[in-house]
């Protein structure tokens, strides 16, 4: 039963609403339900707009995700999609325009041709997710997401001395269920007549679930669906961590069991403001991409004692990679896959007007500096164009239209992902170090990390091989590739 004062207050608000209701009726307004909704909103308890400061993160949150790129947004989406768990999610992203994020600057390709089964399974799960994206990521009331997924396939070429690697990888991929076929030199010549197959003896062609997509739409769809399901994005930067080690007990560091020390709260500083908010969270997930190594140092990972497994830093650092967009009028048509040359350069078709994208990973010794994202066009002239012209003779005549550069979150140990919790902190999870194949694994990683948080273990795919423990023991899990 309502008290008298509140009754009077509500009546006053009602009369305010009903007068507008009367006005709408009188003028023959079209939206007849709007006044009913106004009355209903006036009768309910809502925090007034000026007190509801949604720019500042709350004091407590269940899961705090550092970095709002494809990985962070995917984890936020999967955590919120498990509705019964009822987890509150906050994503902290310091670059609201995503100007330097690896996600939006990537070429956006997906392949199953790895040599580690976990990588293959993750890509297969992600391909399934991307094919069903309308079911998963459609927000009610707006257009269905369109990822422009081109299912064209990858073509790895191998010379005589690296042929056996391709054969062995092919057996592993077939066992995992990937749809890949091997092609001999004659088959390659017949199928792709524009290609020069001089020293190439074997090719591995992906038939299904391989190709390229638009990474910006993927990020946008994940983010919008996560926000629709209740995740909150904050434009802020993480500048510190608070650790609680009341229950910490001395343990054997080689066992990698958590010793009771936990992250208590995260210091989040707002952009362009001296304000710093302390956010208490049960779990903290680090998906900061190329800057994960720096953030790890804030926690003491890399500068701590060896007995607590804090002596190894997170081995992720930014590496700059160039992508060039050129036009070749007589280039290969629809059947052009993402061609990977034995020299390391790759090229793929973009659109239907004779435009192509290409790039190459430079050698270890001449890595470009990562201070800015300026493009070095000499790299194309000296390293990529000769290989392209040798492999595809019609590409001797081409014109570079534009180029851009982006960062790889490069894992210095073995260029594979780091997924899992840190041995020293029980509630600090990482999903970083993808070294160029992050987009294709982002849905799978989102699902796995959400399972790790909600159920305590990986259920869909067992990726314990990619845990942080291998960084401490320095046992790399290398991909055997042909390049």
């Amino acid at each position, binding site marked *: 039963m309502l008290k008298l004062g509140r009754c009077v207050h509500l009546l006053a608000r009602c009369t305010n609403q009903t007068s507008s209701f009367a006005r709408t009726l009188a003028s023959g307004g079209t939206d007849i339900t709007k006044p009913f909704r106004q009355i209903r909103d006036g009768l309910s308890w809502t925090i007034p707009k000026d007190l509801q400061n949604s720019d500042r993160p709350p004091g407590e949150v269940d899961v705090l995700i550092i970095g709002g790129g494809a990985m962070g947004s995917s984890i936020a989406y999967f955590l919120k*999609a498990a*509705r019964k768990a009822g987890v509150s999610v906050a994503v902290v992203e310091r670059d609201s325009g995503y100007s330097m994020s690896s996600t939006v600057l990537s070429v956006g390709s997906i392949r199953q041709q790895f040599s580690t089964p976990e990588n293959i399974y993750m890509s297969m799960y992600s391909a*399934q997710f991307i094919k069903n994206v309308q079911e998963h990521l459609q927000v009610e009331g707006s257009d269905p997401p369109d990822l422009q*997924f081109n299912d064209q396939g990858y073509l790895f070429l191998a010379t005589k001395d690296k042929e056996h690697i391709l054969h062995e990888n092919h057996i592993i991929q077939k066992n995992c269920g990937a749809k890949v076929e091997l092609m001999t030199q004659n088959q390659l010549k017949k199928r792709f007549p524009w290609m020069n197959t001089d020293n190439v003896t074997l090719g591995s062609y992906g038939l299904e679930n391989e190709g390229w997509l638009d990474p910006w739409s993927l990020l946008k769809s994940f983010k919008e669906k996560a926000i629709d*399901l209740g995740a909150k994005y904050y434009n802020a930067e993480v500048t510190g961590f608070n650790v609680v080690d009341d229950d910490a007990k001395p343990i054997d560091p080689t066992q990698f069991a958590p010793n009771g020390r936990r992250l208590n709260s995260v210091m989040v500083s707002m952009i362009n403001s001296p304000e710093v908010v302390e956010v208490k969270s049960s779990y903290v997930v680090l998906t900061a991409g190329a800057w994960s190594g720096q953030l790890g140092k804030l926690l003491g990972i890399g500068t701590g004692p060896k007995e607590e497994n804090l002596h190894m830093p997170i081995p992720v650092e930014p590496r700059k990679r160039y992508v060039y967009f050129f036009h070749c009028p007589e280039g290969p048509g629809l059947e052009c896959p993402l061609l990977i040359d034995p020299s390391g350069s790759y090229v793929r078709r973009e659109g239907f007007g004779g435009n192509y994208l290409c790039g190459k990973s430079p050698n270890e010794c001449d890595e470009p500096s990562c201070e800015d994202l300026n493009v070095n066009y000499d790299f194309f002239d000296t390293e990529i164009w000769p290989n392209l012209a040798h492999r595809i003779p019609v590409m001797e005549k081409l014109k570079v239209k534009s180029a851009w550069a982006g960062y790889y979150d490069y894992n210095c140990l073995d260029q594979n992902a780091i997924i899992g919790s840190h041995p020293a902190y029980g509630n600090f999870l990482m999903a970083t170090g993808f070294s160029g194949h992050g987009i294709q694994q982002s849905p799978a990683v989102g699902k796995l990390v959400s399972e790790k948080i909600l159920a305590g273990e990986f259920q869909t795919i067992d990726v314990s091989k990619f845990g942080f423990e291998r960084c401490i023991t320095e046992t790399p899990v290398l991909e055997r590739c042909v390049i």
Partner: protein
Amino acid sequence: MNLMMQQGRLFVQRTLCKTCAMQMARRCLVTPQTAKVLPWRLNNIQRGYHNIRLETISEVWQQFKKEFKYLKRASANRPLDPKDLNLGLEIGTAVFLIKANARVHFSNGRWYGRQQKGERKVRLPAEEAVGYTVNAIDASGTLIDQNGFRDVMKLTGVKYLNIEGCPHIDDTCLAHLVHIRDSLTHLNINKCPSVTENGVATLHKLRKLERLNMSDLPKVRYSKLIASMLEDAVPRLRVNIISNLVDTEENRAKENFTEEDLGQTRTESV
């Protein structure tokens, strides 16, 4: 006892599907047998998201209609019934297609499925069709989507495929066609509203394709350009396109190329 209970549960699940119990139906559509085989199929459909903002009767009715449409689509794409697979993969898949309102032609020369257009009487393949392969599938106007299509693609030897006017056939289904690339010669994808140009561009993998009908695809831009690029890529292919666009200046600009650029056009336009 356990088996009886399992079968009883399956029976109840299937009847409830048919009688529109929407919530139970969603969970029942994956039977225990198929859940082990394909762990990522149909399980992933996140339909537990109820729209709690139902304020008026009209919105409730809209929601009901949407759910019913989804249910019809899901019931047309259920996993194959293991009973039908007893007679072989070909007959099992053929029964699945017939239940989804398609017609199937076996290599013994007979058409199975609905006999006359709109009639309810169907002819199912029985023991006389054992040992023969499926030659042609006429699935025009059905509600097959990528889940059901994946089962259909396990058939080898399908030469003629007609998926004209299917609302749920999209780019992923066209990418699935790669499994029958060795036998498919005639393909009809007229009027499929969900197909875009990226899907049509994957048809170059069908090396034996001889005829392709791709008129009236509303989401495919530059359809004539893609058709001529496909004819370059695939030997022996001839594409039939009937475009709704009248040949005017503005429509030519929309198509983004002119007749002179291509030289002699090899598409038959009417």
